């Protein structure tokens, strides 16, 4: 077989791999054993750093080793500090003899500083190597943040470059995006610059939840909406809607764009904003209050009733149900007719209306998701988009995201005029996307109730009676807390049956039970 190439067989190759594996395991065990012994002995020295490096470079997810490294770093830093203090003392003790010597302490100081800096650089280099092994290592990213926090001379610009580099390798690594937000804040990178970066990344690949999310954090800051009814200024919103619809049309099966679009079409509500008063009713023997979003304990918020000379703090709120949206208070109150009362909840202040009829009392009601009016330009954009969606539906009548989005667009344009049409889309969605049938039913119920609640103030018997038209079929009853101010709920027997125990409590219910 002279001159012929001999290649290892797969068998031989497997054998080799096995041996290599065994060697690796031996090395790993030896190092881990040694590390543990040294830690018990409190030897947080250079050898310890070397040993941990060798394992972490292969497997960056051993949290214990990172903890040990942090101990080592802190130990080294404190030693440096001690040395520095000692040398300073020496200098102080030594009387200055000649002029030039005076400069010495100033020269020594940066020296110690440099040493500390090199310790940090070493840690940063290690995390960088580890992130090459596993770009999604929580431990490595965390250690990097920790190191930078310790270092007063941290170079944030360099970190920004690192983010750019990593996002070039993988534009969807959410760890890097998260880290980028941390870095840009530290480096005070202008939000406009960040937005440009984000746009570039979306151009490369728009199937990227991270970059859409990054946008959603930057835009409200850069282009705030004055009325707070939209996520950002209407002009910018128009551009964003255009961009995201382009993405959605390019690949309707990619959900990231559709999610971003829903956020754009929403009210821009902040998750952490304080709850607002949804409904309130007060009589001499007690009061009920509904919030538009759950709050764990209403007693934490200051609730004050002001009318004429009166100023009463409403206290001892008790939850009516477990959702944390409806509350009652059994405080007696001296209600004065012909007085205008206002209710204050934290920052919010609303005017109460007197209850119609003979009984004394006052109430307040604000229907959920009151539709914000929009500028002519935005309206035109929404209409163009709706038109595009409807055009697309001609070609692809079963396109799930197009059906849903056109329904959302119709609602954004005019919720009540397009109500029936948007429900038709949901009904179709129940068929074409049967796995999410329940979701669409719930959505239909929400939209219906939003409409009915918006119409309620104009109805006879408001706010004592609430009647749901017989032809309205609901799968569930959302916005239950809004009914707390009513006495009577006229729901279809079928809905009552569906709801069972979940039929919402009314003011009258509570009164009958002597809860008020």
């Amino acid at each position: 077989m002279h001159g012929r190439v001999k290649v290892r067989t797969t068998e031989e190759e497997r054998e080799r791999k096995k041996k290599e594996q065994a060697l690796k395991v031996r090395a790993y065990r030896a190092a881990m054993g040694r590390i543990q012994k040294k830690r018990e002995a409190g030897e947080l020295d250079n050898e310890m750093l070397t040993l941990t490096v060798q394992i972490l470079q292969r497997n960056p997810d051993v949290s214990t080793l990172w903890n040990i490294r942090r101990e080592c770093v802190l130990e080294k830093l404190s030693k440096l500090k001690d040395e520095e203090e000692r040398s300073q003392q020496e200098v102080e003790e030594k009387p200055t003899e000649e002029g030039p010597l005076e400069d010495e302490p100033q020269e020594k100081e940066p020296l110690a500083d440099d040493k500390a800096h090199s310790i940090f650089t070493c840690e940063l280099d290690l995390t960088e190597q580890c992130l090459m092994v596993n770009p999604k290592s929580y431990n490595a990213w965390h250690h990097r943040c920790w190191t930078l926090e310790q270092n007063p001379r941290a170079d944030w610009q360099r970190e920004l470059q690192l983010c750019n580099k990593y996002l070039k390798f993988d534009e969807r690594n959410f760890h890097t995006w998260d880290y980028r937000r941390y870095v840009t804040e530290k480096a005070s990178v202008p939000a406009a610059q960040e937005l440009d970066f984000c746009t570039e990344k979306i151009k490369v690949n728009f199937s990227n939840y991270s970059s859409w999310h990054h946008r959603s954090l930057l835009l409200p800051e850069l282009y705030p909406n004055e009325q707070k009814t939209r996520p950002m200024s209407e002009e910018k919103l128009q551009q964003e809607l255009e961009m995201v619809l382009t993405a959605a049309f390019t690949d309707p099966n990619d959900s990231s764009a559709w999610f971003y679009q829903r956020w754009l079409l929403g009210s821009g509500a902040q998750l952490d904003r304080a709850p607002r008063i949804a409904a309130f009713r007060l009589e001499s023997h007690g009061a009920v209050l509904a919030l538009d979003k759950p709050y764990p304990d209403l007693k934490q918020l200051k609730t004050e009733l002001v009318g004429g000379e009166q100023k009463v703090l409403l206290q001892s709120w008790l939850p009516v149900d477990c959702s944390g949206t409806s509350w009652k208070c059994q405080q007696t109150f001296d209600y004065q007719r012909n007085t205008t009362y206002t209710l204050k909840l934290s920052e919010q202040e609303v005017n109460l209306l007197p209850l119609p009829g003979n009984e004394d009392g006052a109430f307040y009601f604000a229907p959920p998701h009151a539709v914000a009016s929009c500028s002519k330009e935005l309206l035109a954009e929404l209409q163009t988009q709706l038109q595009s969606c409807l055009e697309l539906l001609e070609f692809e009548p079963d396109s799930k995201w197009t059906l849903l989005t056109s329904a959302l667009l119709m609602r954004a344009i005019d919720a009540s005029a397009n109500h029936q049409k948007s429900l038709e889309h949901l009904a179709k969605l129940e068929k074409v996307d049967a796995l999410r049938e329940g979701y669409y039913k719930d959505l239909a119920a929400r939209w219906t109730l939003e409409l009915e609640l918006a119409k309620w103030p104009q109805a006879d018997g408001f706010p004592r009676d609430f009647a749901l038209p017989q032809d309205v079929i609901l799968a569930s009853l959302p916005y239950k807390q809004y009914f707390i101010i009513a006495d009577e709920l006229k729901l279809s027997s079928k809905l009552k049956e569906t709801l069972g125990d979940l039929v919402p409590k009314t003011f009258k219910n509570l009164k009958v039970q002597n809860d008020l």
Partner: protein
Amino acid sequence: MSDDLPEQFDLVVIGTGFTESCIAAAGSRVGKSVLHLDSNEFYGDVWSSFTIDALCARLDQKSEPHSTLRNGSYNWHTTEKETGEQPWNRDSMLAKSRRFSLDLCPRILYAAGELVQLLIKSNICRYAEFRAVDHVCMRHNGEIVSVPCSRSDVFNTKTLTIVEKRLLMKFLTACNDYGEDKCNEDSLEFRGRTFQEYLQAQRVTEKISSCVMQAIAMCGPTTSFEEGMQRTQRFLGSLGRYGNTPFLFPMYGCGELPQCFCRLCAVYGGIYCLKRAVDDIALDSSSNEFLLSSAGKTLRAKNVVSAPGYPPVSKGIEMKPHISRGLFISSSPLGNEELNKGGGGVNLLRLLDADGSREAILIQLAHYTGACPEGLYIFHLTTPAVSEDPAADLAVFTSQLFDHSDAQIIFSSYFTIVAQSNKSVAAEHIHYTDTPTYELDYDAAIANARHIFGKLFADADFLPRAPDPEEIVVDGEDPSALNEHSLPEDLRAQLQDMQQATQEMDIQD
């Protein structure tokens, strides 16, 4: 050197063009003794890349009846003394002659095409470097525009409305899925009809239709539905592999590719002699071997493969024009700024004449391909020949390109590549390869090489994977042994550190 040459070979290959090199490599790879000869002093024959003075010399050369290249001409379009504004002229270009790599037969590779697959399969890819084609273009209303290829292209393009974007994506997805279901309505309905008819039935707009016809499926009005589908699938199947477009171009020109195959051939013991012609070939009927006389020496070969243009040419071989080529060098690129961002790269444009019956391929190369110095652009224009006058054949396309553009052409050249008009070959036992055919990729050339190789060595594998150096076992070594040197470097260092650190420790396995 000729004294050292062995006298007995399994295979003698004459000509170092792409197809011949492919066969030589395949033969050598399966253990045949191979001698590869070329009377030229360069590799690649008509598949080669030239420096600019070598190209001029080649075009000046008087062509013989059997030459594969003829009708050569070239022109310089600069006056002798140029002002400082234009740094490039004849003299400055000739001074940098060696920085040029001018292809006689430029090709573009599908990222998942025959050649790329072959290079990967055979492990020859390690000898080659590529650049992803930057833009696939088409002419639309007299302008050169980029055709959106990838999903992000479609997303970013400003030339399509969102509904058009949806339609294009939907159409491409449908093409991609086509064929999975044989009873698909479309495939039944359009069987035997043209691709254009199918496209029209898809309610796509005119713009999308031209994107697909001109650049994606690269079809004509008569292309059948099946053929169009197949071409579209070929395009789509190559997307998303290496760059934004589905195409690759070899760095430093296509002339590199035959040499990659030659290199593999040599690694497996193939012997190379350039500047060595074969004077005569005779079949020794007693041993059934060929007797080749070359440089006063007689060589014995069991098989002979030859490129058609090499002497001794078998009688009766007749060459006719096959490809008309134009090669231009300009100091400014074609198309707008967007198409040539950052100095440009490789742009591909398929041109059609007025009634769509004739086509040409334009490949524009910038210096990033290593084929020319910075600041210059090469335009390779290729069309199937219709006459012995390449300039006339290409006139309709050059006027499309240059009449209303501000491209500063400094050098222009034309030539014809010929093909055998009949396969009737006197020496039947010699296998003649085909000259380059008009195609974008190398599919026909590879098929030709495969076919000839199959005839020569029916049972042998065509270019099986060549092992990487670390897989090769040195004589006398235990193949499963793991010595320190075969470990990755850092692991070796770690092991040494461990051994030091654990000298006094008890290791439990």
